[in-house]
């Protein structure tokens, strides 16, 4: 199936988000990071279409996620682009497509938990928001509190539910 055919599989959307150029068979990771399983509770009108392993000129094969009637938060988009640099995010408003240029954030707060059990951010009942500094050159994050370093590839397993 070529790129044009894959576009026919899912209709165009008036309002929403298209997450394109996801590495093949990784859409479930993106879905978990965005907590799309919770979307039905938040946005009754939203719907999600997932294409997997479709042809791509740039990647050879790719996954695509189309979310109708919901815009992915830009900070979450930035995290996705950390994990999968190939990802492109398009916001659809009134049928018009605008491409989002992700920023690699200097700090990520709240979305990722620290894997170090003895970190204060995992302290029972302590009101600590986990924070990580981005080490772009090393493709890793460093915990602001305990200095533990995690690779970008570990992030999906550490995303808070």
């Amino acid at each position, binding site marked *: 199936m070529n790129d044009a055919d894959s576009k026919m599989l899912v209709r165009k959307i008036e309002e929403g988000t298209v997450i394109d150029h996801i590495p093949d068979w990784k859409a479930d990771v993106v879905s978990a990071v965005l907590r799309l399983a919770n979307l039905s509770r938040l946005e009754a009108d939203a719907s999600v279409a997932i294409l997997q392993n479709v042809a791509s000129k740039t990647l050879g094969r790719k996954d695509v996620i189309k979310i109708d009637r919901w815009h992915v938060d830009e900070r979450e988009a930035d995290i996705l682009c950390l994990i999968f640099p190939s990802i492109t995010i398009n916001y659809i408003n009134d049928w018009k497509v605008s491409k989002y240029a992700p920023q690699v954030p200097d700090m990520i707060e709240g979305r990722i938990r620290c894997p170090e059990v003895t970190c*204060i951010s995992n302290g029972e009942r302590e009101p600590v928001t986990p924070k990580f500094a981005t080490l772009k050159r090393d493709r890793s994050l460093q915990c602001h509190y305990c200095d533990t370093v995690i690779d970008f590839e570990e992030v999906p397993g550490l995303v808070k539910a």
Partner: protein
Amino acid sequence: MASKPDFFGRDIVSMRDFDRGQLELIFQQTAALEKTPEGLEGALDGKLAVLLFFEPSTRTYSSFQVAAETLGLRVSGFSNPKGSSVSKGETLHDTIRMFEGYGADCFVIRHGRMGAARFAAEITDVPVINAGDGRREHPTQAMIDLYTIRKAFGKLDGLKVGIMGDLRFGRTPSSLSYGLSNYQAELCFIAPDALQVRPEVESFLNQHGVTSSKETNLKSVAETLDVLYVTRIQKERIPDPTEYERVKKLYEVDLAALKDMKPSLKILHPLPRVGELTTEVDSTIFAQYFAQAASGLPLRMALLNMILGGAG
């Protein structure tokens, strides 16, 4: 003895927050206090130091307590969480808030969780001194260590410093390494592979252009060292008792080990020691660890005075 405005109200959370100039100022203030110990008596009369030791400590707690009291500070808090509301589950956050309400002018905190001091510094405007946060750092100990080395050699640049023992779970090796990165010193990490220097420490040193190496055997580098910093390898880090006995012998310092070393070598240890540094070494010219411990009092007095803006 004037304190630079830089230090007033500042937190002491990590050695990475200090540059060479700031460390040298701390050392100058410490040296002045060693000359005239009565110089700052009562300088901070009426202020309140709160010592919160969520992990038991004798040495560090006592030196901060005596330092504070000599400066005229009132001292509150606890040296052991047992018997305090912490043992009932009160959080660090709430403990800080409570003592803020009592008028704390500074906190000195030892906690089992890494990052505790940084968190505390973020939730209060009262200056926070990190007295050890898990295995992460112990910045005032590192300042004492650097001061001791500097006093013994008249410098820190150009020295080769061996840091030995449990480098992975020890907070003093980390802080000392960060502190030495401000100087032209060469570091040599001597430890079993499983207890070697942590990746984030090594990464920091690389980024700051520090020359460092890793060894598993003291004997192989002993004669090249100017300073040997000894730390304990705890039994629980090496579960196999036979293996533990074999490994710990490689990292012990006794009279026999001294034969390989430069006559000018200085041996430091943050104490307490168990068996890794034998008592027969105490009376040799190499032993610097008791002088090191004694420097803790004037250095901590100097820090408290600088942070709380005492007269001098």
